[in-house]
């Protein structure tokens, strides 16, 4: 598979020679059908502009075929898949990625951020997803590849977007793709559905308390202090408050994921009626895979704040869940004394 190097519009022939070597410049220019001129960057972009004018829109089938030939290099595959219409036209005409020139296999250059051709095959899931989108819509969403890709389909070519055939939509980057969200660290398990759901955030704070209830012995006279009779312990009742944004899941707040979390929590306030049987849910709040509290949900409240999203609803939510502990095994002095940090 050939490698590609990025070319800026003001790149000179001397700069290109420094990258590929003076002895290889002839082969590089010949492969890309470029003349031996000083302002090589300008020529590359002139060629690209000409390819947009000469050729019509590239069909989805043609895109599919071209991508199939690039599966040997995942970075080339990704760059090509996320090209805009101008980029696809150039790819179709001379096989060059927009803003890049090909390097012959015989030329060895150092890998850098401006060099494509990593020799890593495209993962099967990414390939299948990409090809499906190409076939159906002709464009690929950036989150097909991974959340940490910095290649954004906001127009990989520097050409003017006022060209009549450039109908590329700008796909927004995910707002939270550069934030490390603790997915999988905090989750709520429900016994009624035997499923759990992940929170994108930790609770704001965790305040825990345990208590004991004593009665005083009545009608005793002349006691310096009342007699305390142990009644019971608990209940251990805690409220966990989570603050999150509806974009935290996929970057598109219309995905319904935040609502899924909220309704999962609220549903645990209601039982399942099965004929004459009434089944209630016991929930477990897990932190890093460890049980923090198991019990019943007695209160779920949501407070919404601005901004307003594209679907007309608020984006920022404060979700509070109150769980009253129902211990899975009898608690006594020795057991509580030996509990771990999370538990």
């Amino acid at each position: 598979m050939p490698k590609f190097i990025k070319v800026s519009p003001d790149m000179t022939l001397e700069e290109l020679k420094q990258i590929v070597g003076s002895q290889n410049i002839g082969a590089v220019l010949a492969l890309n059908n470029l003349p031996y001129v000083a302002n090589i960057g300008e020529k590359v972009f002139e060629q690209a502009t000409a390819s947009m004018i000469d050729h019509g829109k590239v069909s989805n089938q043609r895109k599919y075929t071209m991508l199939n030939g690039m599966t040997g290099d995942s970075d080339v595959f990704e760059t090509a898949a996320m090209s805009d219409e101008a980029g696809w036209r150039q790819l179709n005409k001379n096989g060059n990625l927009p803003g890049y020139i090909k390097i012959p296999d015989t030329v060895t250059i150092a890998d850098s951020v401006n060099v494509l051709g990593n020799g890593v095959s495209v993962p099967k899931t990414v390939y299948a997803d990409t090809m499906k989108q190409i076939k159906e819509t002709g464009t690929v969403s950036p989150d097909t590849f991974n959340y940490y890709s910095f290649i954004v389909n906001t127009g990989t070519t520097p050409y003017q977007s006022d060209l009549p055939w450039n109908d590329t939509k700008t796909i927004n980057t995910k707002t939270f793709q550069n934030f490390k969200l603790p997915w999988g660290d905090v989750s709520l398990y429900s016994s009624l559905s035997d499923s759990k759901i992940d929170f994108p955030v930790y609770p704001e704070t965790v305040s825990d308390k345990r208590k004991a209830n004593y009665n005083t012995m009545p009608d005793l006279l002349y006691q310096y202090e009342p007699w305390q009779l142990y009644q019971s312990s608990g209940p251990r009742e805690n409220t966990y408050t989570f603050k999150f944004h509806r974009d935290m899941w996929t970057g598109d707040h219309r995905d319904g994921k935040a609502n899924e979390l909220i309704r999962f929590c609220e549903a645990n306030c209601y039982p399942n009626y099965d004929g004459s049987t009434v089944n209630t849910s016991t929930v477990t709040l897990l932190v890093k895979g460890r049980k923090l509290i198991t019990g019943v949900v007695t209160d779920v409240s949501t407070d919404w704040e601005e901004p307003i999203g594209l679907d007309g609803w608020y984006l920022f939510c404060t979700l509070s869940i109150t769980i009253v502990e129902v211990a899975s095994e009898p608690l006594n002095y020795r057991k509580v004394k030996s509990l771990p940090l999370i538990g």
Partner: protein
Amino acid sequence: MNLPMHDIIKIQYIRQGYLPDVPYHMVSDEEMFDAFLSYDSDTQTYSGYFVDMYPNKFKDADNQVRYNSLINYIYECIVAYFSELKVSIPDWVYSYMLGVPISDRSNLQDKHNFLVLLGMSNPYDIFDDNTANACYEVSTKYLKRTNDNRVPTIFGEPHVIKELRLTEVSV
């Protein structure tokens, strides 16, 4: 006449892409000067190495006029070289052909050092209208002193650097 200077210029232009990738001795002087500065009478514009290295990006009208004077003078020198008079090319024109005078397209370190010498150092080492004005003043002063009839320059030619250094030591 086969001047060593022409060979050096041809080698440089071939390396940089201003001339085709052929052995330098196969390049004629006409091609060499054409690559340096050529004039298109249809569009009335200049092109070539000089225009790339010393572009006319000045906003000041005076500097625009000075630039046009300089480029026209250089072109006349080239025309005169190929005329029956066979006037030799002045050394300072050869310096432009080699890219020696400092401009906005020069090497950053050279540009910075020149701007510091000129007393016009700025955070981004930009060669702008003020720099061009200062160069013109220094150049005019030097050429008047040496009774040279050529047009003054708005770039960092060697004589501008020389005059600044002489001023530094108060000569």
